[in-house]
């Protein structure tokens, strides 16, 4: 099949004899069975998988959206956190045990306190820990280190106040109700009240904290 027009790049004139000898000897033909198979394949319409592209697009979008939600969602919980019970809404409490006003005195019967120590308290702590993230990790249920941490915080605040001498003796003007949503900050505020000698206000805040966060033994005594 060599094109005579391409003879300019022939390696040599004597190669014509080689080509002639080759063509005389090489007369094989493609098998007829292969002919039919290949012609049939050529006539076949290409398979168009129209569902592949939309499916790939949808999968990519779903992955991207879930990734964005995961990254931007507040309050990621640590991987070691135990599984939570379903969140318990405070509105489901009995009217006598509704969320207390932070500044208002809390009248709480021993029976009510006992009731609060169960699922309600756990639900409150869980709600807080779920919405506050790591800062409230110590308030998760079945974590005795939470109480210890709060006690430690109270003692530290008291020591700090004592070291300040006269300044610490002055009434604390901080309104702890500002920290009503932050259990740790609220506890620290209560401890500061106690250190400042405002025991009545500290006790009031402590009851409010317990009513809100259900941690009976948490506040430093």
């Amino acid at each position: 099949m060599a094109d005579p027009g391409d003879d300019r790049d022939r390696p040599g004139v004597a190669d014509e004899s080689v080509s002639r000898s080759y063509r005389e000897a090489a007369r094989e033909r493609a098998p007829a069975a292969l002919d039919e198979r290949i012609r049939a394949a050529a006539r076949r319409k290409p398979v168009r998988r129209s569902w592949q592209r939309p499916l790939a697009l949808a999968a990519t979008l779903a992955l991207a959206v879930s990734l964005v939600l995961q990254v931007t969602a507040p309050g990621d919980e640590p991987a070691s956190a135990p599984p939570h019970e379903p969140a318990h809404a405070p509105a489901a409490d009995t009217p006598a045990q509704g969320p207390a006003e932070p500044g208002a005195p809390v009248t709480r019967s021993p029976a009510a306190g006992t009731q609060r120590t169960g699922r309600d308290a756990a639900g409150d702590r869980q709600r807080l820990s779920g919405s506050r993230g790591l800062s409230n990790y110590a308030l998760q249920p079945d974590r005795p280190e939470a109480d210890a941490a709060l006690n430690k915080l109270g003692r530290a605040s008291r020591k700090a106040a004592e070291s300040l001498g006269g300044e610490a003796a002055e009434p604390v003007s901080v309104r702890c109700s500002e920290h009503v949503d932050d259990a740790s900050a609220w506890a620290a505020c209560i401890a500061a009240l106690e250190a400042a000698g405002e025991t009545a206000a500290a006790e009031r805040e402590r009851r409010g904290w317990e009513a809100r966060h259900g941690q009976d033994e948490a506040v430093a005594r």
Partner: protein
Amino acid sequence: MPDADAVPPPRAVAYTAAMTPADPDVRLMLRYRDGDATAFDALYSRHKDGLYRYLLGLCLDAATAEDLFQEAWSKLIAARHRYRPTAKFSTYLYRVAHNCFVDHYRRRRSRGREEDADAVTLPAREGDPGRETERALARDRLQRLLAELPTEQRDAFLLREEGGLTVAEIAAATGVGTETAKSRLRYAYRKLREGFAALSGAGGGRGDG
């Protein structure tokens, strides 16, 4: 079957009359790319035997040659929508076949069978050798002469003889420089010339191998 070179009026084609290439094979391939299956029949008829002989001479094994022959055409069929006429169609076709052979050769080496890569597997002789025709003997001699060539030289020779490729096209198809391709061709022709001469002088006595 329609005339292979007759180009029908353009349908929904991606090229214009002014762009129609001179190579009739390219025109057929473009028609096939655009949906004309009869163009493939014509194209296939023009090249099938040459391509089969190329692969047979390269592999020296009929079964492997058939496999690679089918693989090469299947690749061309599968890639028809991406075909762009940047060179002669024969250059394109033989490059595809060459790549199929290279892939096969690599697969074979990876399986640790490189020691018999150049072993000749000739068709078994049937009946009394004395009754074989002169053509069968000539084919037998040719196969043995080709088997004595290094694969690269055999490849260059077969691309020239079966594909009609120029030195530059052989260089492009095999991925080497022009001088390398020319050197391979020169050595291949020289060895084959000497081999044919020796066989002629010996009266075809090497047919039994």
